């Protein structure tokens, strides 16, 4: 007999609707455009007071973490709702880095002791953690890592250079993928303990910082299995792709709204530009992209919550699709705005820069299509 699904895909619960409203209200108040622009100009790229409110008032950092590690044990779709709203608001904060990347890397390592040590701090916002994988090649594959960790003083000493590390320069805890004699492994480094030089990189998207980290025999602690970073890293990246897809869908929806609002009021040739078919069709294409992106993002979210084995395929699918949709919408938004969209003062460019940066983060669409082709066996 066919089982009818009791929690059907794409149907948000009343709690989820309320969560979205709460987060949206919070961000409207705490992350308006003026704050985004202020934080863009800082090196640290976030407001610690807001970060603490997010953790202590809303419980966002711990939302999906297991209760035994200080979290609330919500589902991944809930996290996506939060990220979609953060994407709308272009929130400047190390949320993706600490909560999605770093926390999941620790969690998926299966190292209970490490979980118990690190996750409660991430959950209550007192620890900002970052995951350092990429080197000059830009690859997120564990196999391409060249940084090395050697046994030292009952722990490890880590040497190498990481670049493009989201929020690595402000993190209290660095989770680093490096090569031990057993292979690519996950290691925790306390940046305050010495042996680490950190600097912010110049970025196209100033609302999300990236950093260069140089390790010189930095004291490190092995997390999970020695040589066993590949699997947890791959799983973490699938989750990160799914999370980022939701953020992209949220940003894309915001610029669609922005374009439509402008097209309704901006007059040229004695009529609103939104009455011109060319603008209408641009907006309709954006709508198709936004709705499709939203569907793609939550399709993988629901699959994650169901523990489906399709997650890897759907994660690549969502990341590839939402990236292109977001970039497309943000470029069209600038075009619809015309001259004003080309100015610094208008927020249109902030979304385009976020979009283009996230398109490349965790591998560009072409990379994810290649992964998908591998995973689907063509």
């Amino acid at each position, binding site marked *: *007999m*066919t*089982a*009818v699904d009791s929690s*059907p*895909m*794409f*149907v948000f619960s009343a709690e989820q609707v309320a969560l979205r409203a709460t987060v949206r209200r919070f961000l409207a108040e705490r992350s308006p455009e003026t704050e985004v622009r202020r934080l863009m100009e800082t090196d640290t790229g976030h407001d610690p007071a807001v970060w603490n409110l997010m953790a202590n008032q809303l419980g966002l950092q711990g939302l999906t973490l297991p209760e035994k590690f200080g979290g609330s044990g919500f589902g991944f779709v809930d996290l996506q709702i939060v990220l979609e709203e953060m994407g709308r608001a272009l929130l400047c904060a190390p949320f993706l880095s600490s909560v999605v990347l770093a926390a999941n890397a620790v969690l998926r390592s299966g190292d209970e002791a490490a979980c118990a040590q690190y996750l409660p701090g991430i959950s209550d916002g007192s620890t900002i953690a970052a995951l350092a994988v990429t080197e000059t090649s830009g690859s997120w594959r564990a196999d391409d890592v060249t940084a090395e960790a050697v046994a030292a003083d009952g722990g490890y000493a880590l040497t190498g250079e990481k670049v493009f590390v989201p929020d690595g320069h402000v993190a209290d805890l660095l989770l680093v993928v490096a090569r031990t004699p057993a292979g690519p492994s996950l290691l925790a480094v306390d940046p305050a303990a010495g042996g680490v030089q950190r600097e912010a990189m110049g970025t196209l998207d100033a609302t999300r910082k990236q950093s260069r980290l140089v390790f010189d025999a930095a004291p490190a602690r092995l997390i999970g299995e020695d040589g066993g970073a590949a699997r947890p890293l791959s799983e973490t990246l699938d989750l990160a792709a799914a999370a980022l897809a939701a953020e992209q869908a949220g940003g894309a929806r915001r610029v*669609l709204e922005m374009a*439509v609002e402008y*097209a*309704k009021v901006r007059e040229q040739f004695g*009529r*609103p530009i*939104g*009455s*011109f*078919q060319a*603008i*209408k*069709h641009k*907006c*309709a*294409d954006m*709508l*198709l992209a936004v*709705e*499709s*992106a*939203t*569907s*793609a993002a*939550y*399709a993988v979210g629901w699959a994650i919550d169901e523990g489906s084995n399709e997650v890897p395929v759907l994660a690549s*699918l969502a990341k*590839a*699709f939402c990236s292109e949709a977001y970039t497309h919408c943000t470029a069209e938004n600038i075009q619809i705005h015309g001259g004003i969209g080309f100015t610094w003062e208008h927020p249109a460019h902030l979304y385009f820069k976020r979009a283009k940066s996230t398109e490349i983060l965790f591998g560009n669409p*072409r990379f994810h*299509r*290649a992964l*998908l*082709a591998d995973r*689907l066996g*063509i």
Partner: protein
Amino acid sequence: MNEQEFADRAEEFLVARVARRGPMSTEWGHGEEGLALFHETTDAQERAEADAALAWQRERWANGFGWITGPAEHGGAGLPASFDRLYRSLEAQFDVPDMNPLRIGLGTVSHALVSSGTPEQIAAHAAPMHRGESIGCQLFSEPDAGSDLAGVRTRGVREGDQWRINGQKVWTSNGTFADLGLALTRTDTEAPKHRGLTMFLVPMRTPGVEVRPLRQLTGGASFCETFLTDVVLDDALRLGEEGAGWAVATNALAGERRAVGDRFHESTARAMALLRTYAQQHGQAADPVVRDAWAAMHIRLAVARFQQQRMQAIGEESLSGAERAMDKVLLATNQKLIGDLAAQLLGPAFVADTGAWGTFNWNRWLMGSMGYRIAGGTEEILKTMLAERVLGLPREAKKA
């Protein structure tokens, strides 16, 4: 009855009567090619297929699945649309006859009757279609009223208790064997153009109704032209008020658009599987350009499917009604792109017939896809509808 109970009953019904359907072959060289997007058949084939569909519809009816969303007073089961979708998704797993000949009747025409008809009309015309006794067709488009449906010129003139209809309709599906047509006519040439229209039910055997197959660019005929010459109808065949034809038509089309997409998911998925097999057999599967193109197409299709499912999940009440036009736009684009991908992989075998299974006929897919960008609302019309009705952009200035 909840959905689970309903599903169990439906499955029981189906299992007892028909074999579970194996998937259409996705192996090169086995089974039907199934690459023509528009069904092209001879008249005799068409009639046989229609009869088979009617027989199965009678079986559905006898077991409570003939009119799942229909009003109880007319013999329907009175269940929500989600039950209907559920039934169709279950039935799709079984080897039932192709129900396409009844699609317009059970969809558009029945929907229009229930929305706009009197109880007598529903009983007399909608119920028989669900009982498997009658087949419906749609007589909306005209040579000069395609995108601009409100521009129909077929005239309906009142003559006492009767109406006299004269005009020409095009793009009639199932025209050759349908029993009942749903015809949009102009009954007031003075009124503003959307207000001068009236809808009629036209028994297709009425004197003056002539149906001719229309040859399409593939060379075959999937549609007809319908000529209405001094067709006299009783006023009882008027559907909705005089002058209310536009609202009746819009309503009917929304029903039709809702149904699009669901039924294409299987064919596009199979197409992708066939192309994968072809690529693998012809040493192209390792080519990164082919892999990238295939994956991109797969993603587009999967996302369109999720999009459709999400819109279904949101529920009618939260939507403006125009959203489902998105499915149609995505579907038509995707069908075209699949055809292009096939041409890329097949090369010369796409344009010249080597006789090999499942190769040359891919061009029928591509040619057919061009029709889907036009039929049921062109891409341009649908995008304008999305912009105006979903996004609320202002309507275009009209010439005085």
